[in-house]
């Protein structure tokens, strides 16, 4: 399975890659995108993506807009999307869940929190 990490911070993308390796999740390849626009382009080019980890606050296209667009396309409608974000307000959590987010992890996060969230989805 391939994973797509969407975050405008290269630091967070690097940390999430490390956490995924530590989590012993069966991953073939990890793709990265800095915003929703790049992420949609990556999804169109890489149809093997089976899991998406996405930030919310990003330039160009934020995580909520990205989630909305992904869920509107039938072939990606069932791909698990976990929002990993600083946005902790209940309104944002509810909005993401209503739009089809599979999970929500708040920054700062521990490796165990990510592993636990992914275990429930794999």
């Amino acid at each position: 399975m391939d994973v797509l990490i969407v975050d405008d911070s290269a630091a967070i993308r690097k940390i999430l890659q490390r956490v995924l390796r530590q989590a012993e999740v069966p991953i073939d390849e990890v793709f990265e995108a800095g915003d929703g626009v790049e992420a949609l382009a990556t999804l169109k080019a890489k149809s093997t993506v089976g899991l998406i980890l996405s930030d919310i606050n990003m330039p160009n296209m934020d995580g909520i807009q990205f989630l909305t667009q992904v869920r509107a396309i039938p072939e990606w409608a069932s791909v698990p999307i976990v929002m990993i974000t600083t946005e902790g307000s209940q309104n944002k959590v509810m909005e993401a869940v209503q739009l089809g987010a599979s999970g929500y992890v708040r920054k700062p996060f521990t490796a165990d929190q990510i592993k636990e969230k992914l275990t429930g989805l794999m």
Partner: protein
Amino acid sequence: MNVMIPDHDHLVKIVRGATNGVFSTMLAIDLEQGDAYINTASPPAGDGILSFVGLAGSWVGTGSVSCTADCACKIASQFLMTEYTSVNEDVLDAIAEITNMVIGNVKTLLEEDLGPMGLSIPTVIFGRNFASRTVRTFEWTVVPFLFDGERIIIQICLAPQKSAIKPKPHVNVHEPAVN
């Protein structure tokens, strides 16, 4: 909505909680706490790294993280588990993300009292002998920490949007400690 105006002590408590949470969870670092104070004067020109994000809503303001270049390298090294001895893109990105997490968590806690707020994308400045100014006159709540002998300064200023409620003057003013 019954809006509670954040005073200095409340803000300090929130900033300390958010900062300690980010550093202990993401970097496995227990920061030493410095004495917080209110600063109404423009900060003098300085060296190092200044990273800030804007807050918007019925209250507006800015939150920032600043430290020396050496300190930023130590933080980034711990954050990314890679040794950095000079400031580069990775170090700037790490400090920007830490700012985003610290001020983002402050924002989440403030929203309980102030209602929904937005958070801007972080901006990082690195250089020597630079000065920063806020256009409007604000009081900054300054919350210092110590990490490996270096100071990390978290600052936040907040003011109601026009047409929103007016703030009460702060009463608990703390003098800065000499660290």
